[in-house]
């Protein structure tokens, strides 16, 4: 009996021994990512985080493609070819719902994700990052984060809030989030007014202008990372949307101080200027990082480093021969195409509009790189700064402002040397500038915002009727998710 007891005890022990091992396996640490506790531990990690902010901005749902696409297709220069809700059919027919996943919801989420990355970065630099990279570099980086944050808020305002012109910014704007969020419990936040959001945008851009580097070491970085002129250029856009034309003049003059062409940024930073030929920057063999492309988002063929399926600019706008895009949107034959002030020999018509001979349809062909669609996504170009400044000067000065005329002609004559824009009065000048914007920025997403900042009716196109500023659908509804989860949020 004693032996048996011994046996049992021995065996029992061995049972326990067999089991009580491998404790270290209980602490499984991720092998494919960095935990948040160490994300600011080295200069490389900090720099990689800066780039991640741009990466988020570059997402296909945001500035990688769709933001620009929506800006074009809401307006009257494009016709939807596929009635596909995933590729903006609802946006095009001015009827998106708050539950529209591929437009209203995704853009909202991605823009705020970008904003949160900026906020987390700003917070993290204060806690640790600045001590890791030093003050100078830290300020540069913070300038970049705040610029991207400003751009994101500005972009959200254009679709989800009433234009500034409607009540001088007194209408509901956006939940203004300025601190980084890593966990749950922060959903509730009411909308600030449009003006309050603009105030923050400008504060960020002013900070960015002061702290960003004047230039980087390469043309590529000067295009793909924000520098001082990027902040100034964006300010001309922001102030124009606010109809603060004096401020547009102030900012625009920093980048185009000359009284007459050639215009060029001569403020000691990147020497931004127009390229002699628009086909240098768009079309079959574009150079993406010229001094005209103040800010563009780079693409490579590596998965995740391009906008992804059904988000790419080329996918939407181009149909060229056997391959290329999906021809989601053709040019409206009764839109800008029908405008006789756009001459048939204009380089932008000759080189950047494609005629599909078999269907007779025309397409904007600024982005001709086939799948995986590696054309850089333009955010802001020097041409826009010139036209922003031109419009502000034209609106600020009665009569025909000479510099305004010179600026708009600088853009026109580059592509259409045979034509000189003239204006008999201020209104004609303004209209000429607006027309020039419509031609110059086709496929770059500015048209809708140009209509709405002036509180104009969105014209009819195809089967879609016009939309007056007082109608539902003039601006987008708020994302249904936001309404459901942020108890202080209100719908449009």
């Amino acid at each position, binding site marked *: 009996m004693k032996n048996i007891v011994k046996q049992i005890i021995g065996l029992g022990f061995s*049972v326990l021994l067999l089991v009580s091992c491998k404790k270290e396996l209980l602490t499984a640490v991720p092998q494919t990512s960095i935990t948040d506790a160490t994300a600011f531990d080295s200069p490389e990690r900090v720099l990689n985080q800066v780039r991640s902010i741009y990466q988020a901005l570059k997402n296909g749902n945001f500035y990688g493609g769709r933001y620009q696409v929506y800006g074009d297709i809401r307006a009257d220069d494009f016709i939807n070819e596929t009635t596909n809700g995933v590729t903006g059919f609802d946006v095009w027919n001015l009827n998106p*719902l708050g539950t529209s996943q591929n437009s209203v919801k995704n853009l909202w989420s991605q823009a705020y994700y970008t904003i949160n990355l900026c906020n987390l970065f700003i917070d993290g630099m204060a806690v640790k990052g600045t001590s890791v990279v030093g003050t100078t570099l830290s300020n540069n980086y913070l300038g970049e984060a705040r610029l991207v944050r400003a751009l994101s808020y500005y972009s959200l305002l254009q679709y989800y809030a009433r234009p500034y012109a409607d009540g001088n910014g007194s209408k509901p704007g956006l939940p203004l989030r300025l601190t980084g969020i*890593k966990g749950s419990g922060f959903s509730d936040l009411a909308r600030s007014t449009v003006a309050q959001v603009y105030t923050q945008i400008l504060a960020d851009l002013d900070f960015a202008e002061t702290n960003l580097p004047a230039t980087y070491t390469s043309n590529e970085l000067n295009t793909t990372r924000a520098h001082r002129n990027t902040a100034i250029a964006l300010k001309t856009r922001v102030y124009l949307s606010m109809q603060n034309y004096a401020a547009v003049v102030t900012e625009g003059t920093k980048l185009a101080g000359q009284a007459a062409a050639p215009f060029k940024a001569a403020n000691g930073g990147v020497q931004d200027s127009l390229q002699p030929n628009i086909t240098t920057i768009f079309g079959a063999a574009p150079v993406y990082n010229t001094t005209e492309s103040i800010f563009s988002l780079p693409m490579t063929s590596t998965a995740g480093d391009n906008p992804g399926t059904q988000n790419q600019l080329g996918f939407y706008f181009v149909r060229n021969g056997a391959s290329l895009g999906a021809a989601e949107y053709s040019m409206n034959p009764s839109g800008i195409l029908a405008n006789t002030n756009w001459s048939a020999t204009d380089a932008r018509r000759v080189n950047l509009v494609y005629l599909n001979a078999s269907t007779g349809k025309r397409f904007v062909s600024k982005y001709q790189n086939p799948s*995986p669609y590696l054309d850089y996504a333009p955010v802001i170009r020097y041409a826009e700064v010139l036209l922003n400044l031109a419009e502000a000067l034209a609106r600020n000065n009665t009569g025909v402002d000479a510099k305004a005329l010179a600026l708009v002609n600088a853009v026109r004559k580059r592509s259409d040397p045979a034509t000189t824009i003239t204006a008999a009065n201020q209104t004609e000048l303004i209209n000429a500038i607006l027309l020039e914007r419509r031609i110059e920025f086709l496929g770059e997403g500015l048209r809708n915002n140009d209509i709405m900042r002036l509180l104009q009716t969105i014209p009819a196109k195809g089967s879609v009727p016009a939309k007056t500023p007082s109608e539902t659908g003039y601006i987008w509804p708020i994302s249904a998710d936001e309404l459901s989860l942020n108890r202080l949020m209100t719908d449009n």
Partner: protein
Amino acid sequence: MRKLIFILSAVLFTVLSAAGQNRTISGKVTDEKGTPVDGVSVASSDGKHGTSTGKDGTFSISVPATVKTLVFTSVAHETQTKAIGAQSTMNIVMRAKDTKLEEVVVVGYGTQRKKDFTGSVATVKGSAVADKPVQSFDQALAGRVTGVQITIPNGVLNTPPVFRIRGVSSISLSSYPLVVVDGVPTPTGDFSSTNAAGNALASINPNDIETIDVAKDAAATAIYGSRAANGVVYITTKKGKQGKARINYNVSFGFTSAYGIPEVLNAQQYTDYKNMAATNNQNLNTTNPSGSGYTKFIMTNGPDGRPIDTRWADYIYRQGFSQDHNLNVSGANETTSYYFSAGYSNQEGIVRTNDFTRKNILMNVDSRFNSKITIGGKISYSNEMNRINSSSGSLNGEGFGTAGAGRLQFVTAPNISPYRNDGSYNISTAGNFIGAMNNTIAQVGFYNPVVLFDKNRSNSETNHIQGNVYLQIKPVKWLTLRSMYGIDYLFVDNEIFQTPIHGDGFAPIGSATSTLGKYKRWTWSNTAQVDYTFKQKHTVSLLVGGEQDRRTSTGFGLNRQQISDPVYTVIQAGWGINNSSGSVYGENYLLSYFGRFRYDYNKKYFVTFNLRQDEYSALPFQKETFWGVSGGWNLNNEKFWGAMKNVFSSFKLTGSYGKVGNTGGIGDYASYSTYGSGLYGGLPTLVFNQAGNNVLKWETSYKFDLGINFGLFNDRITVEADYFKNNISNLILNVPQAPSVGLPTSVPSNVGKMYNKGVEIAVNLVPVQKKNFTWTTNFTYTNIGNQVTELAPGLAEVLTATSGLETVNRTAVGHSVGSLWLVRSAGVDPATGSRVLLNSIGNRVLYRFAPAAGQFNWSNPDGTRYNKPDGSANTINQTADAYMYNAIPKFYGGLNNNFRYKNFDLDILLTYQGGNYVYYGSWAGLHDQRFWNNHVDVLNAWKKPGDIASVPRPVYGDNVSNGSALPMTYSLFKGDFIKLKNASLGYTLPQDLVSKARINSARFYVSGQNLFIFTDYPGPDPEVSSNGNTTSAPGVDRNTIANGRTITVGLNITF
């Protein structure tokens, strides 16, 4: 010294024996019918002398005179003990074992007599799932077990069924039960990442299964602690049975075909109808706003000169042929049992190119080394090919894919053909669509499905190895020590090719993807069990043990685009762009200690305690203890029960309560907030990509069960009834945060609460039991109520989208999980033909697509604009106006009747469910007024004022009135059905006939699956789930291809 005594006594004993006077007893053993029984062990009562009966049942044994009794034992019969009288011949009649009494259930790390068991476990015999036209056993469980709901979500082969034991027990995590195969947990779910489904459980050949034990309550599951909340399914594979080797061969052939295909317009009807809709669109029809001759849609003549009239379903469905072969060899002698099987199954699905092939082998061996040590183990290998060339649109996440065949079948215009008249594929030159032919509208379909089915591939191959080895030692009679090491290695090879000429491969100029996923697991468990009976009335049993469970998953792969030559179709060929694909890296580890204590007094009172402590690497290092207590009372063994004993052949009350957990679906690193790596213009980035929760813990279920089991008329009728309530707390919700907080992922948090409660009843009847005719009936009924009682603070709802696009499932407090959330539609306005919807307070609101000047999209019945109270324009939308409809069946079950007449057997299984709604999203699609083809009922659409119609006035481009853009109750239907799930008729060849051919038995059978559905549901099948197993999104039928109907003939032969 001891040794010496032993030797001496042995010698003495031998001498004594030899000295005793031996006598020889001979005789014959037969069964109740008089048939000789061979292999019966005949032994002296002291066990020192023994023999066994021969083929003719006779035996002869020589025993000393001191032996007064002989013991006759046989596996299939009750043991007989007979006194030896004066006679030297004994004829014994063996009675067949009362299998009910001896029935055991698997309880985790052991088995137990069913009669003594105090928890809720249902046992399904392997024969119930064998020989069925299914790919995995779980598909065949519907209607057979109370509390178990099985929904085959679609008609794609090897789709994991929606498997719920006593309801949905989670919102964000998995509700799939834990499946333990021969003691080793196995992965569940779809491991394919292609358009072919790849249920991991298909690796278990249903023909190799001996029993399936479904454990439902805390008592039965608590031994699996943190993984038990969804119930546990124990699979026991077949082992060799005592006797000489048996060879069994089963072969079957079958045909499967689709049913309930939506009836759509033919070419002429389509052309006329769409032209009418285009005419009705005043924006489109500006040239001829009032005329009727406005033609955008024009018929095209085919090569035969006659108008094309294409029935697209004919290009998507097919009649599938299947064949199934299973061969096994098994046997056992006193010390060793073995079972070896090989299976080959090749099944064709109803969707063109959808095939399933399984080749598998299984070997089970158990060997008693000596009276104390047993060694055994098993090894199984299975290879499954899951094939389909192009998306069926039916798997979870595929519902809105442009290539989805389930939608293409009814979207694509019937007045075009898949081929041009010159025989080439009909592909648009203007875009990546099917060509419009004479129609003047650019698009009359999405992709050309024929090209995709001809040219693409989307296959998944699984190699699955399951094995274990164990050592069992019984140092003394009452102690069992056991150590088992098991592995489960699952390797999944996914392979996709997309042609550059059309479809998803068009833009990338061809695309090929190959990924390999390796999911490896080892489990090591060590247990010690004490079984002891004292004073004959007290039986105790104590189990203690420990277990380690280690899982790693790694995956990698390649996606290549821009094919360099159109002739290539494999990834190894020449391509332009290479990207990584299918990267997976994960590891986890579960360390557990557990115990079970059982006690019964005189087989009258039973109590059981289960305990398990788990520590899991995916959760921030904390231990948690799970437990279950249960008791049983066998009233039939009570004296006071008295005369009731004559009424009841058995009567038992049971009750249990306990706490179990759920971890299925928690990410391996869910507790961490992480930054991942990406690229910006080719340069590295570090981006916040996961919001973690460092205080995450287990979901916990408190399960309560009260059961009553009784038998009447000598168990001719048995009834098992249970009341259960499962309170689930600490529900892990991936709590959605307002998108404006900008988190990359929702944060997993233990916040929600819900309950499932209900009643289960199983009735087994033997209405007729005669020599030539028996009829057995098995009826199961489960009634279940689910309600969410708490979500996160401030969280009113969890919305779940179908395929990321359409949101109709909403989980909210006070409702069942994933209720359907729809705007109420109220028919068609007879005056204008507009769709009428109801707003939140029930006011009628009219929708008009493309309104004329002075009209509005949204108007009041009088035509004025529908406004908010402040006068600004308003719309009907889900957030403000939708209502909730229960999507979870409130009752379900089955009725199985088995008839046996002479050599014929007939088995009929009906399944039923009800009390739920199904959102038939395809119905919205079938009424969409874009280029999409429509259901034939649009022919009765509104045409003139005064018409009472169910379909609104068609306006070309309208995708709101039909529910495409705004989900509405127009597409909501009751999900009640009764289904003739399976019927099989068999004929067993007469014994005397087959024995001449040296065949033990032979049975022919013909069997049918999904033969008939009684339902008001207008779609093909209300048993459907477009969102697969997603717990928070049940009851959706969106562009899904339904189950097929299968007829099988087979032969089962044993040598």
